[in-house]
């Protein structure tokens, strides 16, 4: 079974600065997807960024980028130029690549990010 570990329960960043959120995972599969989701107080899980394991290039979405280290099974999220609206819980998640199977997400425990003005 796959597991996702987020060992930092909380982090804080100054507005306009850069912060990195850590995530490690364990799997025996070679092909899979990794995600970062943001959950503000509204509770809705919002997709931040997605990485396909077969791609060597790290995914980037505007101010958000990942550092995907497949051999180390590490998947960290970097948020540049942090904004007050980035304050939320962030979850790392894993999904199998095989579309015929149950494509459920396995989530980490999450990290609470606060942004200081």
């Amino acid at each position, binding site marked *: 079974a796959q597991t996702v570990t987020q060992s930092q329960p909380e982090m804080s960043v100054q507005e306009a600065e850069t912060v990195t959120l850590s995530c490690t995972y364990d799997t025996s599969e070679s092909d899979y997807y990794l*995600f970062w989701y943001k959950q503000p107080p509204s*509770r*809705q899980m919002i997709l931040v960024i997605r990485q*396909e394991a077969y791609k060597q290039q790290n995914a980037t979405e505007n101010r958000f980028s990942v550092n995907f280290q497949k051999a180390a099974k590490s998947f960290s999220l970097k948020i540049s130029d942090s904004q007050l609206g980035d304050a939320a819980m962030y*979850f790392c998640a894993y999904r199998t690549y095989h579309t015929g199977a149950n*494509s*459920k*997400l396995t*989530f980490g425990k999450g990290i609470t990010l606060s942004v200081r003005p």
Partner: protein
Amino acid sequence: GAGVSQTPSNKVTEKGKYVELRCDPISGHTALYWYRQSLGQGPEFLIYFQGTGAADDSGLPNDRFFAVRPEGSVSTLKIQRTERGDSAVYLCASSHRGEETAFFGQGTRLTVV
């Protein structure tokens, strides 16, 4: 609809009562998932539908929990004889079959008193 809709947004019920939670997925999405998120935790998988059938219900904690999706669109999660430990946020997500990204609703916060 434009997004995944869940109703009610909040539900308070007494221990032992029966509750139903509704999920209306994005139009055309064949895959639908239910997750449960306890306080301070990440969401945990409950059940997965592909069309009308429950393709994987391995995450349902016990036989008090049941879910249906009779027409392959709206789904209802049903909890019988609720217990205080059932208190959590119940999240629903949907996706096109074969697509890697699931879209979530805002969840239903269930409180059992």
